[in-house]
């Protein structure tokens, strides 16, 4: 099968979304779910073919003289593609409940941009070379911009401006020259196991500069100081924050870095030179600093946003450590963090819809009225922290193992410190929800009812699915591990 | 001495050219600017004609015996250039008439002042 087919469902559904529009909104959303399941099926087909040992590539579209757009399937992309398509279905179900419960405007535009972004993510996941990845990266930026400004308020516009400004200027001013540099030095942009830069004679400082261009140019990976857009983008509707700013968009960022480290530089080249050593402290600083900032935020979505920044830098660290184990952990962490964080965002949205609370200080005792939501929140939190019985533990373990492999214990200390901070900023929310008395909140005035007051069924269903995946991945990591294990390192 | 008198024509070309450019830049009156432009262009015509002149040469008419003759090509070129110059002057004068109609002045500094006001409003 040609991987280009994966672009088809999200693109093909757009005319249906527009055609059905607001008048037939059930049909509109049904068509999106059908497209989502179709996409998931296609990705699964790719997986089966890949496991059967077939090389799967698409045709080429020569965009520039020697460089063309091309898709192909390799383990890392497969993980990302499967993840994004699965979560697209779940998020669509969730957003049906959320958008209607919240009575959002312009839902058709919302779904169109969403589908476009998913098509972009598929292009990124199966990119065969840096140029294709760059094109998909830009496409995602543009497609998600209307989602950030969806609310149309002044705040949303400012956020949109920051979003577009930071991501676009970062990619054009840093990522693009990095790509052109690779093209000039290696005369190829293809992703090759073992990298293409190892024998082109780049000096160590040049390698460090090039790597820095990639790390900072990939604004979506949100390493400090390129992280400003992420908390700002939280003005978007919660499903957007959930799928895009916890999964698709930010993961495209770190995915770019993992791909580049593995297939452009090659992990051997990075682990034998000191080029990455200059950048590791920045990533470590981001991990710790954003955890501390998260601790100070009272708005739940803002806290989750800073938590995302911190978790993304785990993956950046994993990429920069450049050992087989750490990169394995990085790819694994893409998945586990995705499920954990999307659960948390879903919960935040559910709380907002059901009880109109956005601040953490108002959420005490909420476990009595929304037990399912808060239970799922607890599981998600555990996964982010990295405690059993949630999947986050595995990936953190691998990243820590990677830093052992690189003989660098200080990064383990950073991970430990961050874990403590994670506990400090996530656990109280869940604990207070269940064990604090149910106080009437000051803003709403009315005391909370003692009966269940959960979010709409569609949203609740999505929350249950993602949180159970967190546990399932803890119990059965083997299929995912063997897929990641089939990455060709050299 | 020879550099001055022998190249008399070329010195005149330079003087005319600079005079033309000076008028073009220094005068505010649009008509005078166009006069400057014409002087400037005319100096180029001189330059061409001078180039083609051969000492003792005659008009290039085929008389049978190979006489020394001046280069005819430059004359042809300059005929074309003169036509172009006249056309330019005509267009410029037409524009000046229209400018006079709408601005009531043909002084460049006054026009600029009027335009500054317009931009402010």
């Amino acid at each position, binding site marked *: 099968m040609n991987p280009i087919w994966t672009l088809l469902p999200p693109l093909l559904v757009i005319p249906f979304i527009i055609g059905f529009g607001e008048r037939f909104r059930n049909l509109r959303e049904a068509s999106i779910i059908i497209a989502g399941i179709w996409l998931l099926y296609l990705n699964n087909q790719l997986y089966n073919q890949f496991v059967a040992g077939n090389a799967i590539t698409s045709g080429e579209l020569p965009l520039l003289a020697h460089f063309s757009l091309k898709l192909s399937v390799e383990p890392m992309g497969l993980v990302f593609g499967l993840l994004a398509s699965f979560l697209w279905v779940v998020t669509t179900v969730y957003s049906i409940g959320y958008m209607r419960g919240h009575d959002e405007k312009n839902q058709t535009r919302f779904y169109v941009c969403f589908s476009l972004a998913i098509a972009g993510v598929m292009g990124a996941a199966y990119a065969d070379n840096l140029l294709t990845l760059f094109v998909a990266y830009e496409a995602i930026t543009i497609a998600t911009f209307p989602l950030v400004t969806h609310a149309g308020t002044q705040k949303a516009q400012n956020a*949109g401006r920051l979003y577009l400004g930071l991501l676009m200027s970062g990619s054009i001013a840093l990522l693009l020259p990095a790509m052109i540099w690779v093209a000039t030095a290696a005369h190829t942009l293809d992703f090759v196991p073992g990298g293409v830069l190892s024998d082109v004679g780049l000096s160590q400082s040049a390698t460090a500069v090039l790597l820095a261009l990639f790390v900072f140019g990939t604004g979506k990976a949100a390493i400090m100081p390129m992280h400003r857009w992420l908390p700002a983008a939280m003005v978007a509707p919660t499903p957007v924050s959930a799928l895009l700013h916890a999964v698709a968009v930010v993961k495209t960022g770190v995915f770019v870095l993992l791909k580049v480290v593995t297939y452009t530089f090659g992990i051997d080249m990075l682990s034998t030179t000191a080029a990455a050593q200059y950048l590791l402290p920045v990533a470590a600083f981001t991990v710790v600093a954003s955890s501390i900032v998260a601790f100070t935020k009272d708005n739940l979505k803002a806290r989750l946003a800073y938590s995302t920044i911190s978790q993304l830098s785990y993956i950046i660290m994993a990429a920069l450590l450049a050992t087989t184990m750490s990169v394995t952990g990085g790819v694994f962490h893409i998945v586990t963090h995705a499920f954990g964080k999307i659960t948390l965002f879903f919960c935040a949205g559910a709380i907002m819809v059901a009880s109109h609370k956005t601040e953490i200080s108002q959420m005490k005792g909420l476990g009595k009225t929304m037990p399912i939501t808060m239970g799922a929140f607890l599981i998600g939190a555990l996964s982010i922290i990295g405690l059993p019985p949630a999947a986050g533990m595995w990936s953190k373990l691998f990243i820590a193992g990677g830093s052992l492999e690189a003989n660098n214990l200080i990064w383990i200390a950073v991970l430990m410190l961050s874990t403590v901070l994670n506990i400090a900023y996530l656990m109280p929310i869940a604990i207070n929800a269940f064990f604090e008395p149910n106080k009437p909140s000051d803003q709403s005035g009315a005391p909370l009812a003692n009966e269940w007051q959960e979010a709409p069924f569609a949203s609740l269903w999505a929350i249950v699915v993602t949180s159970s995946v967190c546990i399932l991945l803890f119990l059965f990591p083997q299929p995912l591990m063997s897929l990641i294990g089939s990455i060709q390192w050299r | 001495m020879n550099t001055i008198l022998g190249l008399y024509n070329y010195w005149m070309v330079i003087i005319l050219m600079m005079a033309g450019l000076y008028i073009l830049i220094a005068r505010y009156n649009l008509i005078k600017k166009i006069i400057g*432009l014409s002087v400037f262009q005319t100096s180029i015509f001189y330059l061409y004609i001078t180039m083609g002149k051969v000492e003792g040469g005659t008009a290039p008419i085929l008389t049978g015996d190979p006489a020394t003759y001046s280069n005819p090509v430059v004359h042809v070129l300059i005929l074309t250039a003169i036509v172009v110059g006249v056309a330019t002057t005509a267009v410029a004068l037409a524009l000046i008439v229209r400018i006079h109609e709408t601005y009531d002045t043909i002084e460049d500094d006054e026009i600029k002042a009027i335009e500054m006001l317009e931009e402010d409003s």
Partner: protein
Amino acid sequence: MIATQLPALQIIIPLFAAPLIVLARRSELAWIIALVANFLCVLVAWDLFQLVNEQGIIRYSLGGWAAPTGIEYFVDTVNAPLLLLVSSISAIVVAYAYHSVKKSIDSTKHYLFYAAWMLCLSGLLGMLITGDAFNVFVFLEISSLSTYMLIAFGNDRRALTASFRYLVLGSIGASFILIGIGFLYAATGSLNMLDLAQRIPNASSERAILVAFSFISIGLMIKSAIFPLHAWLANAYHFAPISVTAFLAGTATKVSLYVLLRFLFSVFGTQYNFEYLLLNVILLPAAVFGFLIMSVVAIFQTDLRRMLAYSSVAQIGYIVAGISLATQAGITAGYAHIINHALIKTALFMSVGCIIYRLGHAHRPSLDNLIQTMPLTCVAFIVSGLGLIGVPFTGGFISKFTLISASMEKGWWVMGGLVLVSSVLAIIYIGRVVDVMLFRKQRLPNPMPQGRNEAPLSMLVPMYVLIGLSLYLGVYGSETLTVSGEAAKQLLGGFR
């Protein structure tokens, strides 16, 4: 029979259409004649393009007088694509112009407008096709004189002064070229470009060649609005009728750039320019300061036409930067950007034209929330704007990528970086407009009725044809690059 006369037909068709239009007088008829003549031009250019690709260089002696005595038309891989480009852009803009002209120009003058347009087109095509140095000057003046006329058709009275100032500067530029050609003739005794290219290395007076070179370069730099000789451009583009601006933005400066390329590389030769004279000491700062300063200036413009005019000067800077590299890759990039920028900028001005058609002006603060009333126009502006920034799948990306990689190849890292800085500036000035169009609540009382109020279809369709064309060249960018690569090879190799 016709096939052998194609080079002459390319010029003669628009040249004869002009008096025909004057005779026709009725404005609809005038428009139809202009359109038909223009499409014939496109056909001829397409045939020439194909012929050159198949057979190589076409040499055509005008009136049967053999070169170097007679005037020769010369079509090769450098000018054939540009002939096609210029005639296509003109055809599309003429088709677009009908309603816009009808609304903004007195109906008794339409026939003069279209006649001037045809003259301008034949002048531009002539500059492209001719292989005779003096003939370049003649065609340059034909196109310039008709351009002055076209600009003066503008609604605002400032169009008259803009036209006058352009006339003065343009005439100085043309006269400089004339002086330069005179010196070349004095030193070599020839006007034919091929002949000149062979004679210049053996010329008796090196100083005459140097003087000729300087005058011609400066003259052409004025005509192609290379920073800092761009002063005429902003006012001319701002106050001309918008269809004229769209036409000129895509063609006039590009054709002058072509002539500059022709003289620099084919006539004087790469070695002469860049190794002996170190021309890039002049051209490179002009290019770099051009695209940086003019992008900054563009940010602060509130009128869209003026903003795009300054952006044009900046984009010309990219082209010159490519030229000043003087390598195969650099010239390929510059040439590709001539093509891509011509398409993109024309489309941008056309979308501004649609806005002006409805609003009467293109003042940025009054475009609040325009997407509600003119969605198609706004989408056109945004898509073309992305092309200007250089987003993938647009032509701008292709040429910018090539330009940066060419400058890195030569080791000019700083220039590559500065090109990117100026791209970021482009994000700002395009972004400000997009921001206003999409998100601002109405600030000024809206003179327009509520609801959809698009420009007429006869304006939208040509605009989208052009955008489709530029997107096609963005996706199949290697085609542009192949054509540009051939052109660069031909330029660097001298006349063959």
